[in-house]
């Protein structure tokens, strides 16, 4: 499977300041392929998260297109796009993303339930074991630390073996040991056939990447 972004741009309007409009992402062309881990680095505010969000089908671009198997994501209806995202994509957002009324295990299995897939309980347990959160399976998210929530989000993204993983700062809140573990798991997901797209400030992430990209003031460049 290939996800192709062509001439992707995103313009935002600011309600104050000298210039009203600014381009968070300038025309960007990018192809994400199965079995490949792509790492995107860049300074804060350079447009990394905006690019990831557009690639993941969560933010309509101002220009350009994102196609998956010749289907332009942003020409699909909301229900079609949501169904496609639930079936093929997994997102590890930068902020807290736990559903507070569900236990850790229920949170992890929720995306597969949403996609109508069989709950991957054993895969989830294996990942939780490796990330050291198996003992938290019946705990509510409100009782977890930031690092535990992050590991839960990583498990949730990887448990259903998605075709595309979009990870925005997946190692934030994590110690060195867990950082290595999460990057290793993302690498393994790519080796198992997923296309993994990681936005990070983590310098060590480059060592896990098949392809390294950089973003500066909305401009995407190959490193």
């Amino acid at each position, binding site marked *: 499977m290939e996800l192709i972004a062509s001439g992707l741009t995103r313009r935002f309007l600011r309600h104050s300041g000298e210039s009203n409009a600014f381009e968070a992402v300038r025309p960007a062309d990018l192809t994400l392929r199965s079995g490949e881990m792509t790492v995107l680095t860049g300074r804060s505010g350079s447009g990394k*998260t905006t690019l990831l969000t557009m690639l993941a089908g969560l933010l309509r671009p101002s220009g350009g297109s994102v196609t998956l198997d010749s289907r332009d994501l942003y020409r699909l209806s909301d229900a079609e796009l949501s169904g496609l995202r639930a079936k093929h994509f997994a997102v590890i*957002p930068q902020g807290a993303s736990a559903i507070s*009324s569900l236990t850790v295990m229920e949170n992890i299995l929720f995306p597969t339930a949403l996609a109508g897939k069989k709950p991957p309980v054993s895969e989830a347990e294996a990942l939780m074991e490796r990330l050291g959160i198996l003992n938290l399976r019946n705990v509510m998210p409100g009782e977890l630390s930031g690092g535990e929530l992050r590991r839960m989000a990583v498990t949730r993204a990887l448990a259903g073996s998605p075709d595309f993983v979009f990870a925005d700062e997946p190692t934030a809140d994590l110690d060195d040991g867990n950082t290595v573990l999460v990057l290793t798991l993302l690498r393994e997901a790519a080796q198992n056939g997923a296309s993994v797209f990681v936005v990070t400030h983590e310098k060590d992430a480059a060592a896990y990447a098949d392809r390294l990209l950089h973003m500066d003031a909305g401009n995407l460049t190959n490193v």
Partner: protein
Amino acid sequence: MTPHKLPLRNLLRRPGRTAALTVLVVFLALSLFAGSVIVMSLNSGLGSLENRLGADLIVVPATARGKVDPEKIWLQGTTGYYYMSASKLEEIRGMQGVAQASAQVYLASLRADCCSMPIQVIGFDPETDFTIRPWIGERLKADLGPLEVVVGSRVSAGVNETIRIYGESCLVIARLAPTGTGLDTAVYCTMDTMAALLQAARDLNHELKIDGDPARVVSAIYVKAVPGEADRLETAIRQTRNPKVTVIRARTVTSDVERSLGGVAHTITVLIVCVWILALILLTAAFLLLGGERRREFAALRALGMSRGGLAGIALKEALLVSLFGGLIGIGLALLFLLPFSGLIESALGLPFLQPGWQTMLILAAGTLLAVCAAGSMASVFSARRLSRVDISTIMREGA
């Protein structure tokens, strides 16, 4: 854990928020259901009173009002008695424009050794009666024998029990359907039984102020006029002497009740409308405020692959569940208040009050549930719409 169970889990996980929303819905359901039942009971009571009075004119002795207002006997169950000669019945029957005429005799029992309880006893003539017999006929096919009585629905004596009236034991052979009027607290017997009871009361030195034979007195004469003759007949009866009489138009009694009922129904309707407007505003505001707190969670659901329709569905299902739950509690509370205290409500309002049967109650309850569910869903529409359009950047950026 399937996505369609999420709304219930969300509600159970936040009991404080759920309880606050439920309380508002309880007010909606309670006011609508209780108000509707009360208005319907008053209307049924009025209909029942019209059936039970069942005559165009009711003739009582002119001295009756000085003792007890006949309307109070019919409407509020006040006990009382007054008499005039039975010859008045024959006189009225002979008048032009009379289609039917039948007499009733009243006796009030006492709270004393001679009587089981203070109740109104009404004697009627099964041969000529056209108001009580159809009512009794609903429950009793056989004729009433000597010292046999049928009791109103609110008399505390069961079938086959005996009640003592001035030392006479009377067998209860049937219990009447409720009318919601004062007639529910009375006991009914034939004229022969009534004559025996009057004689027994006399023998116990109870002052009845009857001159002569107790079998030759009547308390009220129910007159059905030939169509179009009621006004003329009323005037003619008023002019009769020996004794002088008071003529009560049955329609006047029911019109008075109808007027009071209209006032009460109007007040209840205004109250229901006020409660609904206030509760709906509060409910809408509550859904919006509480929805604002949940933007991050809905953004997370969106990121996980849920559609805008799915997000709106969760918000609407939560509102529907709260409405259903609050509606059931509201209806339950209304029943707890209405069923045991209908007598108190009746005496507080001073109007006939006949509660609808359980089938009608069920229909009203179902209607109330539908109404509160629709109202709850409507109140959550704005919130659901806002949540379904939540900005995904809420969670895509840390600390946003």
